[in-house]
């Protein structure tokens, strides 16, 4: 689960994301250092989740490269792509649990596919993963029978099933109460510190951003490109773009409600 010592992390180079004639973002470049927590920020609708989907192999970019340890994902053949994807763990917004399967079955599916463990070993391992996120005892529940927060946690257990080197989170705090959000932040920090997992998070929850981010990129919906890079705490004070400072200071304390 730790990033290998010679790992160069993730490198996104001159990425263009396009839907038909609609340009989502153009010429986006950034680097994610191995074993660090990286946050993708931006206003609503700027393309953060779309960027994530490009990185995890769901959408082919219109231009540019996404490199994992120097190897370009989209230039690799199918088998190589599958091998690369096995190093990812992804938590989708809302968990994206398979609704006809119990929590244990959800976590067990990737285990059954990619490990040579026996069914009983898989059940034990799945239980362990669920207990890590505080869902011990809920193994036989269906996703519809648990709350949204619990579904997210189960989704996280599934994302961690194969001990991935890189974890991707799409709006992990959305819909979580402040305490749960705080617990999730602590879990991410724990994963980074104890296991050296590289973590990429799409979020715009400021409390989480400042709590966990080592580095970040800011996507702008007006100019449709990345405009700021660096640790959020530094950007908050010193970024040359007022928009980024406003974003990180929640409207810079000015009277009235600014652009939401």
């Amino acid at each position: 689960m730790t990033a290998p010592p010679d790992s160069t992390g993730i490198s996104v180079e001159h990425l263009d994301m396009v839907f038909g004639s609609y340009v989502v973002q153009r010429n986006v470049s950034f680097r994610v250092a191995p074993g660090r927590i990286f946050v993708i920020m931006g206003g609503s609708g700027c393309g953060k989740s779309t960027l994530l989907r490009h990185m995890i192999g769901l959408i082919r970019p219109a231009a540019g490269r996404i490199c994992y340890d120097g190897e370009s994902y989209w230039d690799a053949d199918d088998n190589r792509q599958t091998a690369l994807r096995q190093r990812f763990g992804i938590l989708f917004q809302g968990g994206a649990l398979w609704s006809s399967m119990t929590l244990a079955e959800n976590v067990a599916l990737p285990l059954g596919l990619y490990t040579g463990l026996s069914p009983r070993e898989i059940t034990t391992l799945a239980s362990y993963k669920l207990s890590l996120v505080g869902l011990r005892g809920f193994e036989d529940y269906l996703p519809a029978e648990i709350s949204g927060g619990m579904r997210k946690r189960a989704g996280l257990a599934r994302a961690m099933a194969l001990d991935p080197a890189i974890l991707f989170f799409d709006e992990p705090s959305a819909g979580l109460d402040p305490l749960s959000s705080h617990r999730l932040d602590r879990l991410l920090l724990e994963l980074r510190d104890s296991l050296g997992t590289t973590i990429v998070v799409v979020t715009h929850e400021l409390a989480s951003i400042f709590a966990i981010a080592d580095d970040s990129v800011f996507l702008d919906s007006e100019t449709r490109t990345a405009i700021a890079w660096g640790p959020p705490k530094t950007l908050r004070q010193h970024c040359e773009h007022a928009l980024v400072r406003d974003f990180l200071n929640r409207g810079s304390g000015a009277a009235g409600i600014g652009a939401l």
Partner: protein
Amino acid sequence: MIRAIIVTMAFDQATAPKRQRSNNRRGRAMKTGKDEAGTRRLIRMEPAGPVLRLAVGGVWALSDGLTDPATVGEALGAGGIDTLAVRCEGLERADSALMVYLTALHDLAAAAGVRFDVSGVDAGISALVALARAVPEQAGTGHVTESVARIDRVGSKALAAAREVNSQIQFYGELALSFGRLFTGRARLRWRDVLEVLEESGPRSLLIVTVIGGLIGMILAFIGAVQLRRFGAGIYVADLVGLAMAREMAAVMTGIVIAGKTGAAFAARIGTMQANEEVDALITLGISPIDFLVLPRVIGLALMMPLLYFYACGVGLAGGMLIGTTVLDLSPTEYWQQTQHALHPIQFMIGLGKSVVFGALVAIAGCMRGIRCGRSAAAVGEATTSAVVTGILYIIITDAIFAVLLEIYGL
């Protein structure tokens, strides 16, 4: 907040109506909005040189509709005005109806390049108007509706149809690859899912297949009886019903029923999974959604349809026998023997073959619409209805092909 407005704008209720009447003689009172509401809302324009003063008062309630400031707009357009000053006078009650009116005035003033002065309006109301206009309209986020020339629309539709065909062909390609993996044992599916499909599409469809199969048999017998009776050839109704059911109707009608029932269910189920990102979760784990979701359904329906076909045949023959014995006064034994005489096993083989193919097609149509579904509730509904239409279309086209092929081979 509205209560605060009422409190701060506490005017003597008793004198208000009188003031309205006297105001009617000064300035121009505009009774706008609904006629019945005209007496509730009061808007008075008082031109004063370069300043256009507007007094609003009375009762502004949404139940009376909204007011269009067209008259004010005309006055501004006439020119010579540099300030539009609004104040509240005799305002008893106000809700969003007033806010919308004032916001519209703000826009009119901005468009005419005229200063908008709301100092005479209660602070709470003017703050809301300011808030509504604080954030400039975001460029590029609105939907652009251009009026497109008809020939452009025809072109776009043609291109869209071509893309649709392309997308369907892609699906068939992936499906073929998936079957290839199935036969080499490399497909990733759960056989438990096949059993679930069998249960969903089989026992639960018996009632509707009984009703439809039985009624079709009876209708065929009835139509045949009316004509054949005239030639004293009523007994041949047994042939008619037997052949028609075994060769065509049982397979086709069951296929159509299953398209509406199970095909739609597949599309809805998979479409909803698309909306929940469940399909994406499969893809990112390296599981082909075609292997995992589509194959079990195609296999399940292809296995279940022949069973339903035989059942429909049986029920259809029974329906035909019922008509034969009641309308034509044939005896059940006569009817049954005639049917046996007319029906060669090859007819059942043909019907059986058709039912397997139809089952697979219905599943394919349903799954394809589900996988190609958009990510909203409306898209799921669209995919569901589309699955039924596509399934039925596939059945009928294939049936026609079967008819031609069987004719060629002399069957």
